[in-house]
């Protein structure tokens, strides 16, 4: 039995950094709060470094088979901790000097550790604990601004999270009850002979909890309110990182905890994916508030990502497509949020008029990120979409790929609605909506846009990193 905590350094590092930050925040004066930020960034970097070492080692289960350290976990560590680092960078201009600066970083670190743990969980009870670790700090993040909309958004997020968490726990209880074990390998062998109704109920209930993290239909209601109500960095976080945990966990749960053909989950996922991408896109059409637009765009992107889960059991293409898409999406989406963070006074699409003249480089970054989210080559999301469409068609869901293509075209419309005003002349009588927030957000936006292009061009190197067999 392997109980080596050294295998979990990438998960432990951000937690330790969070504790250190919490302790230090008490006696570090406000003007030196950058130390907290440095500690948080160091936690992420240490986790990334430990992941790089872990990738060289051999995969294995730790802690009584409850946690798997394998290529999927490593991919989640890279994407989640990397994305958390980007969030920390883009948040500086917004949260520096705030009363709750330290809390922001602590909650980001804890929720990130939770998201990674969801992917690594190889046991239903571990999965639920990770779900709580990923969710509860996120509720706090959304409510951190303590204004009425933020509080309302946080409450809504919390109530929905609690509801879906309970449903998920009920499903896990039933599955554990009929299988008499909670580990995934144990479930896989025991559920083959279990009553079909009980298994189906358990699977659907666990799926509900995962869909809450993913932001998929029917658990997507919190997404626009939480993103609109939270501060921009917190919005960037909840739009991007919980999804990674939810999708990775769904992958492992479907392919490793369920016997083949026990429940027809692929068709369930296909319907959910179709509904999620279409609903997100249709709702995004009417949005004029940029944060709500990004919120609905993130729902539709979750739909594309769920396509990879749909064909998870069918072929080897889907796994690397999922992880590559998650990395590409996280980078591109955070780039768009970084632009929003850089222009805090610009809340609506119309406020972006005149941006190309005023901030040409930032406008270029926004163009790359938004066209990147559509899937325009040579950005990373293009290769990701190519891979995910290929995997979906190869898995026998051509109709889903065709629907995704139709949705991609539809999404172009609302991204262009945002881009088009940036090229227009600025009306003279308007308040200055394009005042920049600082250099950190801007540099993050440039770096994310450049990274999105670089990841696409260097896809030959990055793509295989998401592959690799999971533990049986």
């Amino acid at each position, binding site marked *: 039995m392997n109980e080596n905590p050294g295998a979990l350094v990438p998960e432990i590092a951000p937690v330790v950094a969070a504790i250190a930050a919490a302790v230090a925040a008490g006696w570090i004066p406000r003007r030196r709060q950058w130390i907290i930020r440095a500690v948080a960034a160091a936690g992420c970097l240490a986790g990334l470094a430990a992941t790089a070492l872990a990738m060289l080692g051999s995969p294995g289960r730790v802690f009584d088979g409850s946690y798997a350290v394998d290529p999927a976990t490593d991919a989640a560590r890279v994407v989640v901790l990397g994305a958390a680092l980007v969030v920390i960078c883009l948040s500086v201009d917004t949260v520096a000097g705030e009363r709750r600066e330290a809390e922001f970083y602590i909650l980001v670190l804890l929720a990130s550790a939770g998201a990674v743990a969801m992917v690594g969980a190889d046991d239903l009870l571990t999965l639920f604990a990770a779900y709580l670790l990923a969710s509860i700090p996120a509720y706090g993040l959304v409510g951190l601004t303590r204004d009425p909309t933020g509080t309302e958004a946080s409450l809504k997020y919390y109530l929905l999270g609690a509801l879906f968490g309970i449903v998920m726990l009920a499903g896990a209880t039933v599955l554990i009850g009929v299988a008499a074990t909670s580990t995934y390998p144990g479930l896989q062998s025991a559920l083959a002979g279990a009553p079909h109704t009980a298994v189906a109920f358990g699977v659907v209930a666990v799926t509900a909890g995962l869909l809450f993290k993913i932001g998929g239909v029917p658990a997507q209601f919190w997404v626009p309110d939480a993103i609109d109500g939270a501060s921009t960095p917190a919005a960037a976080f909840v739009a991007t990182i919980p999804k990674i945990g939810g999708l990775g966990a769904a992958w492992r749960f479907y392919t490793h905890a369920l016997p083949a053909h026990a429940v027809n989950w692929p068709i369930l996922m296909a319907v959910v994916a179709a509904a999620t991408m279409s609903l997100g896109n249709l709702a995004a059409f009417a949005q004029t508030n940029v944060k709500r637009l990004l919120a609905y765009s993130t729902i539709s992107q979750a739909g594309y990502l769920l396509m990879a889960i749909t064909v998870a059991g069918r072929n080897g293409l889907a796994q690397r497509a999922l992880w590559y898409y998650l990395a590409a999406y996280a980078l591109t989406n955070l780039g768009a949020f970084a632009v929003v963070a850089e222009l805090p006074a610009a809340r609506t699409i119309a406020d972006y008029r005149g941006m190309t003249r005023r901030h040409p480089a930032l406008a270029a970054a926004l163009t790359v990120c938004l066209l990147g989210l559509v899937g325009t*080559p*040579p950005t990373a999301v293009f290769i990701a979409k190519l891979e995910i469409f*290929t995997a979906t*068609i190869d898995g026998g869901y051509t109709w889903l790929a065709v629907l995704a293509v139709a949705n991609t*075209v539809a999404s*172009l419309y609302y991204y262009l609605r945002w881009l*088009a005003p940036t*090229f227009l002349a600025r009306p003279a009588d308007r308040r200055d909506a394009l005042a920049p927030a600082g250099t950190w957000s801007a540099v993050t936006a440039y770096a994310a846009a450049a990274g999105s292009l670089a990841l696409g061009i260097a896809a*030959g190197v990055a793509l*295989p990193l998401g592959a690799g067999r999971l533990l049986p």
Partner: protein
Amino acid sequence: MLSLITFLPAAAGVILAALPARLPAKFFLRAWVAVAAVDLALVVALWVAYNPHGGYAYGENLRWIPDAGVGYHVGVDGLSLPLVAVTCVLFLACGIYSLGETRRPRTYVCLFLGLQTVCVGLFAALDLVLFFVFFDLSIVGMYFVIAGWGHGEAARAAALKFFLYTFVGSLVLLLGFIGLYLAAKPHTFDIVVLTRADPLAGRGAYATVVLAAIAVGLAIKTPTVPFHTWLPPAHSEAPAAGSAILAGVLLKFGTYGFVRIAMPLLPGAWRAYALVFIIVGAVSAVYGALVALAQPNFKRMIAYTSVNHMGFVILGVGAAGVLAGTDAQSRSLAVTGAVTQMVSHGLITGALFLLSGVLWERTGSYQIDDHSGLAHRAPAFAGVTAVAALASLGIPGLSGFIAEFQIFTGSIASQVAATAVAVASIVITAGLFLRALQRMLAGPLRLPATGPDAGGRFADLTAREAVSVVPLLIVSAAIGVAPRWLLDVIEPAARHLVGLVAR
């Protein structure tokens, strides 16, 4: 060498973008002309050294995303080299024409340099994903050209329509490419490997679906009836240089896709559905000509004649898929004619759109009825416009005649009815061009009451305008009078393609 030609303009664009925008406009515009001239010189060097019987030349095959079956594979043959050349000629002409541009010159030049890379890259691409990358980027680049430098608010609406419509086409095309990729064992996007393997031979319904996806994607770009509705607004609102590139180069992406991808990679399905393409081609030719006849707007009229001319190309490539009642020689003639038509249309329509830009700069109107008697004031403008119009309607001695003659000779063997219908459309085109020329150039002088030239002056072609337009017509005449230098390059590749289709 091919990569140098492809990426030289983009690299120059990146350097120019890094320079401060307050440098004089002339500096950026002249830099564009210089880069385009160097690129053209390099292509001429390629052409001189090219061996028409050697298949793909100047190939480069690098690993890009080996796990996804994607490579950076480029090369040119007799089908693509003429199109690369016409691309470079047109960009140079547009660069010279745009020397007077004053609106945001740095961004304008960078966009066009980027577009040149995209256009050359597409014709050189021998990998489906690489082809798609350039295909999609051309849409993005042209969107910004139309929206940023077009004629006001209507231009933004037209640009949006253009982007959405052609983006649909590109994604449908991508689905088709994925279908080809999955059919090949091992999976690959490499056009040369896929051509050799013919992975969809004998896969009835699957091949039909893939061909349908690819054909719809390419037909939207070409455009053919019934997918042409994005074209007229995009053209009438775009700036002159944008229109010239859109019609002269971007439309060829569709037709080139047929000869480079649809025909050699799906020969069985192509033969089975050749009649569909023949009918679509003939209908496009007639429909484009009839709608052009009804246009009161000179630029929209030219835009619709593009639909007509692209219809001839589709007719030619469709006829090359009919084996019954034909021999390889006539099919090869049809393909040669189709490729010649792409070259010829690029030159002639590019010239016509630049001339319509001259008209707009003088009077701020494209309406045929607003103008009359221009020949009195501007004899050179009238003469050049007349030559371009005659070239477009296929007068012998200019390139259009050579192209259309070969298409019809190659198609008539098996497709008498469709060819007859298409030939009839030439009469309509002749009528509409002659009528427009007569109304605008002859008669008493009349100019729009408002516009930049409201005083009643209509200045003749300036040296800048003449130097940009006249060489296009000289090349067209060179093809029309002595076509061998072009046909010697195209014919071996066309014969090879016909052999592939007949497999």
